[in-house]
């Protein structure tokens, strides 16, 4: 089985936000929920870089550890998913996540939180693959159709890579070797306790 990861090559990202838009549209994510976002570092200064960030599907994920109802599970491809039927919207995964990935729709009185929503790596949830229930709760399940996450698939500069860890790391290493510089695999050290030597 593969070890699926995201890798954002910040030296290629042009902050077009197409990944964000693609994600919102593909999964019909409600207003105010951002499963993916583009953060610009050193904005307007020398060395400015933009990084597209979503759930990194951590190894030994902290969200899963702190969840009081144990609603998280990791797939055979190392994608971290959660069960919205079990989630109580307590917010603990947000406290523990280094990437700000968990999102909460405002559903009821006094702006209280609904069930957590986050990037599924386009892998849906515990419902039957491709079912209406899965689409309603978690969005499209592209992985079950043999496709990779849409954000990475339609990235205009191929900055955002998705796929097996070894393959995307190899692509990134080749890029860095060819152009002579690289800002690093953003978030890898924090998410996987390993990074790509460049």
């Amino acid at each position, binding site marked *: 089985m593969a070890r699926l990861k995201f890798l954002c090559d910040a*030296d290629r990202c042009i902050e077009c936000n197409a990944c964000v838009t693609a994600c919102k549209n593909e999964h019909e994510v409600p207003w105010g929920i951002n499963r993916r976002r583009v*953060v*610009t570092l*050193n904005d307007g200064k020398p060395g400015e870089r933009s990084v597209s*960030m979503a759930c990194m599907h951590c190894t030994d994920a902290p969200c899963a550890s702190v969840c009081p*109802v144990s609603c998280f599970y990791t797939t055979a491809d190392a994608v971290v998913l959660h069960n919205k039927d079990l989630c109580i919207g307590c917010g603990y995964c947000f406290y523990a996540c280094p990437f700000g990935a968990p999102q909460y729709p405002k559903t009821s009185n006094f702006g*209280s939180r609904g069930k957590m929503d986050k990037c599924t790596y386009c892998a849906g949830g515990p419902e039957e693959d491709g079912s209406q229930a899965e689409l309603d709760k978690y969005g499209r399940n592209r992985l079950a159709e043999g496709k990779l996450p849409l954000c990475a698939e339609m990235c205009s500069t191929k900055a955002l890579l998705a796929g097996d860890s070894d393959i995307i790391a190899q692509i990134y290493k080749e890029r860095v070797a060819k152009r002579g510089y690289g800002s690093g695999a953003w978030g890898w050290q924090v998410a996987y306790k390993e990074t790509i030597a460049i």
Partner: protein
Amino acid sequence: MTSMLSKWLRTGLFALVFGLFSLSAPAFAQGSVNPTAQSVKETQLFQALKPGEALAGRVSIPNKAAGNLIQPGRDWRAYNQETLPKIGAIAILGVIALLVVFYLVRGKIRIDAGPSTMKILRFGAIDRFVHWLTALSFLMLAITGANVTFGKKILAPILGPEGFAAWASFAKLIHNYVGFAFMVGVALTFIIWVKDNMPSAVDAKWFAAAGGLLSKGSHPPARRFNGGQKIVFWSVVIGGVLMSISGWHLLFPTAEGISEAQFHATLHGTVAFLMTALIIGHIYIGSVGMEGAFDAMGSGEVDLNWAKEHHSLWVKEEQERKSGSRISGAAQPAE
């Protein structure tokens, strides 16, 4: 001749070096803004951060907090999953163990002079309402709150994932709404009882005698509240305020940064278990631990002999103030 030559050479060399420097200066400046040849590195940015700071930038979406790219705080997981359950288990089981030992050694604390036929009003309706408002809301909060820490270890295997999630969801709602009743209870507790809970020299003597708890027949004097009760009062007030403030923050976790949320979650959990342990002790001494103590918050009227033993100065003050008019019982003075 040689000195002339060397002087000329030196001047030429100086001009050459100066010329090179002035030529290279713009090139150097340009190098630092070259957008492709240099890139900001994750490791460099992390090194530049102060502890607890997030690696942050600008986002074009309205949620500005999403600008935090990578946030610190993986330590909180260790606190939440290891330290807090330890604090909770040690505090709660420790207090229960101590109380069991205390009960086995000391037994139920009886009224030494035996029950009297007379009763004295200790807590009126308002006092008892405030006590039970705070007490019942605290119990509901303690149970539903402890569920967040211990539920998945203790209840989830019994109820199953769906059953436990349904209970936890209900418990979260109870916790979020009953919290407001508790805040009102704590505020009223402070208002009605603060004047009787100021520390005094009487308390020092009370503590020196260990409250008379350890030896039979020992009853250090006390006013309306003894030293131990004052500790409970101030713990409830200070602990209650800390719980209220941190609880407000936890109602809106995404409204601020992750480090603030983690701070409030840490405070909330730790203070909660310490308060729970203290309240278990309070419940014990107010019920099975001491004969006649429950009446104070039950009917509000306590046995006169109990009151004389445990709150001697208060009884004297009450009797002088009311000249015995509030003392009811079999023997009513003829009018």
